[in-house]
């Protein structure tokens, strides 16, 4: 029973962040429909914030898609881990793939037997999906109802969401150094490259450092 309770509490807590996404997306001039489609079909928080972050900063659609997709590659690795546990085919596999995100994989892999792993995955996956989409809509409607987003501090909500997502990953000297490198590289590129490009270019840092060390 406890795996279902854990799944529900995590789903509600994470789903509520959808409010921040909905509001930030509306502020970056995405319509309510576009905002809701991102939550329904992309359904991966970091990638969704990346799209609106790049386009909101004046970047091209291609930069936005590339940045969001690179952030989505970890979902592919989660899928490789989850597929042998879930053992589903056909339509069920399509649904399982869509629900494969940080939270559903985390809850599943934290269980010590296969039955709880499967229960944890489906309950968390569907739970986050439902709450994330409801709160996205509420956030977008709320942001549209207010006037100038800067006056309400919404333009700082996007970098705040990103820093909250990256902060727990900065666990040692190496990760902090590479973060400083990403700040420096992106700032140096700002005056010389089209908006959006400085962000995606920092992925080269990850590839170079990860390849060697």
């Amino acid at each position, binding site marked *: 029973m406890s795996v279902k309770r854990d799944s529900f509490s995590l789903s509600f*807590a994470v789903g*509520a*962040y959808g409010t*921040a996404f909905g509001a930030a997306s509306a502020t970056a001039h995405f*319509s309510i429909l*576009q905002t809701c*489609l*991102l939550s329904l*079909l*992309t*359904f991966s928080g*970091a*990638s969704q*914030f990346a*799209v609106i*972050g790049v*386009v909101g*900063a004046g970047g*091209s*659609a291609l930069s*936005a898609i590339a940045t969001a*997709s690179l*952030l*989505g590659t*970890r979902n*592919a*690795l989660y*899928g*490789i881990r*989850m*597929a*042998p546990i879930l053992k589903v085919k056909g339509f069920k596999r399509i649904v399982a*793939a*869509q629900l*494969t995100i940080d939270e559903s994989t985390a809850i599943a892999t934290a269980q010590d037997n296969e039955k709880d792993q499967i229960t944890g995955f489906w309950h968390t996956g569907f739970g986050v999906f439902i709450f994330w989409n409801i709160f996205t809509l509420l956030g977008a409607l709320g942001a549209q109802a207010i006037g100038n987003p*800067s006056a309400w*501090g*919404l*333009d*700082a*909500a996007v*970098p*705040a969401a990103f*820093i*909250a997502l990256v902060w727990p*990953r900065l666990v040692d000297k190496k*990760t902090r150094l590479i*973060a400083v490198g*990403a700040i420096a*590289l*992106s700032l140096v590129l*700002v005056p010389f490259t089209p*908006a959006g490009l*400085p*962000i995606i270019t*920092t992925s080269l*840092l*990850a590839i170079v450092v*990860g*390849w060697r060390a």
Partner: protein
Amino acid sequence: MSTQWIAVIGTCAFAFILKFVGHSLPEKWLAHPRIGRINALIPIVLLTALVTINSVTVKTKIVIDHRMAGLGVAIIALYFKLPFPVIVLGAAVGSAIAYHFSH
């Protein structure tokens, strides 16, 4: 078609393709340590760059403004391990106050 629509459709398509490909690949692909290392570093550099670009730039110029106050509040909230909604709301309030003082 607007930048927003192309970005939305492209992102949705690739997000699902990546997820589905994962469910269709053999498990041994995970084993390569190089893939694991790069995969762990990619979110760090991209998210850090997204923080930077969204807090100190406007288009292709570096602009320091009210958003820095919001970012400062977010960092303080993170230091005290406060939950995500508090971080985002705190940043918005900090930035809004700075905006009203500077306009």
